[in-house]
C-alpha cells in the first residue's frame, strides 16, 4: 500500500507507455517482423551513442516547448490543439524578421528572432483565446481550423513573396526561402553533433513555465481558473483574461518552437512540402502527448519529451532495420494519449482506496486505544 501511495503517479504513465508498446509489438509481429529486434534497434537508434542522444535531444526540443505551453493551457482548462498552426506562425514571423534585418552579430540577431517567434505564436494563440473567452467559441475546433489557415498562409508566402529568388531563376520553384543569415544560425554546442542552442532554450523555457505556474500569482490564478472557474470568478479573479493568457502563453511557446526549428535546422531556411503535416514533424500533437505523459508538469515534461523524441528518432532506425514504417510511433502515441486520459480515473480510484484504508486503520487504532484506556 505504501508503495502504491508513493509511486502511483509515476506507475500509471509508465503502464500506459508499456501497454502501448506491447500492442505495437503485437502489430509488428502480425506484420511479420521481429518486435524484439525492432525495439532493440529503436532503443539503439534513440539512446545508443552520443550522436543518437544529440539527435534525440534536438528532436525532443520542439516537443518540449509545445508541451510546456500545453501544461499551462490544459491547467487553465483550455484545450489547445493549435500547436501546429502556432509553430508555423512563429516560424513565419521570425523568418520574415530575419530576412528583413541587416547583417547583425549573432548576439543581437538571435534574441530578435526568438522574440519574433514568441510574438508570432502568441498572436496565433491569442485569436482562439479571445474567441473562447469573449465569444464562447469552442477552442478545440477554432484551433484546428487555424492550423489549416496558418499552413496555407505559409504555403502561399513560400510560393510567392518569400520564395528564394534562385528557385525562380532556376525554374525549380521549390517552396522555400533563401538561406537565412549565417549569424542567425543557432550555434552548435557539441562539435560533430546536431546539439544546438535550441535545446538549452527549451530547457530554460520549461523551468520558466514551472516557475510561472507554481511561483507567481498569475500562475496561481491560471490554475485556479482551470480548477473551478466559478469559484475563481467568485474570488474576484478575471476568468476571461486568464483563459486568454493561458492560450497566448501556450501559443507563444509553440511559436518559439517554430523559430528554433527553422534557425536550428540543417538547411537554415523555412521550407514547406505543401502537405498539411509540413515541417513541424507533428510536434504540435506530440507535445500534447508529452505534456499529458508528464502529468501536465513542465519539469516532468522534460524527461517525457526526451522519451517521445527518442521514440521518433528510434522509429527511423527501426524502419531501416526491420522495414516497419515509422508511422507506427504516431499510432502508438495515439494509444498512449488514450491510456493516459483513461488512467486519470484509475488514479482517482486508487487514491480513494488508499484514503479509505488509511481511515479504517486510524479508526481501528482509535477504538483499540479507547478499549485499553476504558
Amino acid at each position, binding site marked *: 500500500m505504501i508503495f502504491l501511495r508513493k509511486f502511483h503517479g509515476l506507475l500509471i504513465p509508465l503502464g500506459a507507455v508499456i501497454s502501448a508498446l506491447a500492442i505495437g509489438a503485437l502489430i509488428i509481429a502480425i506484420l511479420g517482423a521481429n518486435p524484439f529486434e525492432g525495439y532493440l534497434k529503436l532503443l539503439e537508434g534513440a539512446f545508443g551513442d552520443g550522436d543518437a542522444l544529440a539527435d534525440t535531444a534536438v528532436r525532443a526540443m520542439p516537443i518540449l516547448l509545445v508541451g510546456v505551453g500545453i501544461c499551462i493551457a490544459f491547467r487553465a482548462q483550455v484545450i489547445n490543439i493549435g500547436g501546429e498552426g502556432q509553430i508555423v506562425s512563429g516560424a513565419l514571423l521570425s523568418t520574415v524578421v530575419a530576412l528583413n534585418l541587416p547583417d547583425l552579430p549573432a548576439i543581437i540577431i538571435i534574441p530578435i528572432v526568438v522574440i519574433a517567434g514568441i510574438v508570432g505564436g502568441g498572436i496565433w494563440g491569442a485569436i482562439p483565446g479571445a474567441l473562447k473567452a469573449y465569444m464562447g467559441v469552442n477552442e478545440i475546433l477554432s484551433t484546428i*481550423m487555424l492550423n*489549416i489557415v496558418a499552413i*496555407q498562409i505559409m504555403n*502561399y508566402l513560400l510560393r510567392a513573396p518569400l520564395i528564394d529568388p534562385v528557385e525562380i531563376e532556376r525554374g525549380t520553384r521549390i517552396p522555400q526561402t533563401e538561406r537565412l543569415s549565417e549569424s542567425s544560425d543557432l550555434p552548435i554546442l557539441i562539435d560533430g553533433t546536431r546539439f544546438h542552442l535550441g535545446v538549452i532554450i527549451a530547457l530554460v523555457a520549461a523551468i520558466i513555465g514551472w516557475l510561472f505556474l507554481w511561483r507567481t500569482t498569475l500562475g496561481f490564478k491560471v490554475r485556479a481558473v482551470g480548477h473551478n472557474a466559478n469559484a475563481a470568478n467568485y474570488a474576484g479573479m478575471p476568468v476571461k483574461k486568464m483563459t486568454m493568457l493561458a492560450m497566448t502563453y501556450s501559443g507563444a511557446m509553440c511559436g518559439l518552437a517554430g523559430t528554433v526549428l527553422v534557425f536550428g535546422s540543417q538547411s537554415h531556411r523555412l521550407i514547406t512540402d505543401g502537405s498539411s503535416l509540413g515541417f513541424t514533424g507533428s510536434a504540435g500533437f506530440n507535445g500534447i502527448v508529452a505534456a499529458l505523459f508528464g502529468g501536465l508538469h513542465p519539469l516532468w515534461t522534460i524527461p517525457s519529451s526526451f522519451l517521445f523524441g527518442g521514440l521518433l528518432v528510434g522509429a527511423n532506425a527501426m524502419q531501416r532495420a526491420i522495414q516497419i514504417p515509422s*508511422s507506427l510511433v504516431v*499510432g502508438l502515441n495515439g494509444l*498512449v494519449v*488514450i491510456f493516459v*486520459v483513461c488512467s486519470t*480515473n484509475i488514479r482517482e480510484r486508487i487514491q480513494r482506496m488508499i484514503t479509505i484504508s488509511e481511515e479504517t486503520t486510524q479508526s481501528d487504532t482509535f477504538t483499540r486505544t479507547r478499549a485499553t484506556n476504558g
Partner: protein
Amino acid sequence: MGEFFTISVLIATFASGVRLATPYLLAALGETLGQRSGVLNLGVDGVMLMGAFFGYWTVLETGSRLLGVLIGILVGLLMGVIYAIATLVFKADQGISGIGIFLFGLGFSELLFLEQVGTPRSIPSFEKLKIPLLGDIPKVGEILFNHTLIVYIAIALVPLLTWLINSTTFGLNVRSVGETPSAADSLGVNVNKIRTMTILAGNAMAGLAGAALTIQLGTFQNNITNGIGFIAVALVYFGGWKPGGVLAGSLLYGLLTAIITKWKTLGIVSGATASLTTMAPAVLTVIALAVIARRSTTTPTALTIPFSRGD
C-alpha cells in the same frame, strides 16, 4: 473567370459539390447523434482514416465495393468500442481521447497502407445511378438526381435521423441524456447505454464516410481525409445540432471544395494563390463558429460531461 460562368461548367461544379459533400454529411450526421446525447467525439478524422484504409484495401483485394463499404462500417464500429470504453467506462476527457483516436487512426492507416499496399493503386469508383424521370429534368436532374447510390443514402439519412431524434422514444432518450442525464437516469433511462449506442452508430457512420471518400476518389493516400473529420465536427455546431442544418452546411462545404477544384483546373487561381483559396473553408468555419456561439442556446447542455451517479 468567364469560362467558369457557363451553364455546363456550373452544372458540373454543382453536381460535384453534391458528390463531395457526401463524406462530410455522413460523418457529421453520426457526430450529430453523438453530440445530442452529450458526447463530443473529436476522433472522427482518425476513424474516417481507418475506415478509408480498410475500405480501400478490401476493394483492392476483392473488387467488391459493397464489401469495402461494409468493412468501413465495421472498422468504424470497432473504433467506437475503443472510444466508448475510454469515455464511458474510464470517464476519460472526451476531447483529449478524441485526439488520441485521431493520432491512432493517422498513424496506423499510414502504417498499414505502406505495409500492405505500398504504392497507390486505383480501385473502381462507385457507378452512377440515374433516378428515372427525375434524372431527366434538365439541369436540376444532372445536379441532384444523377449520382451514386452512396450519395442518395447519405441524403436519405437526413430525414431518417430527424425522425429518429424528434419522433421516437429512442430519440427522446438521446435528447434527455444530452440535456440532463441525471434527470434521465432518475426516470430509469440507462444513460451510458444510450451513449454507447450513439457512439457506436456515430463511429460506424464515420467509418462509412471514410470508405465512401476513398471509393469516390478511387484511390488512397496518407492522411486522405485532410481534416474532413474535424470540419464534420464543426458542421454539427454549424447546423445547430439538427440533421437538416448539417445537410445545408455539408452542401456548402462540398460546393466550396468543388468550386476551388474547378478554379484550379481552369487556371483561374494558380500556383501560390491556390493555397489561399484552400484555406477559405477553414476561415469560413472560424467565422461561422463565432457567429453561432453568440446564439447557441441549442447546445446540448451535458455535452462533454461524463455521467456518473452521485456516489
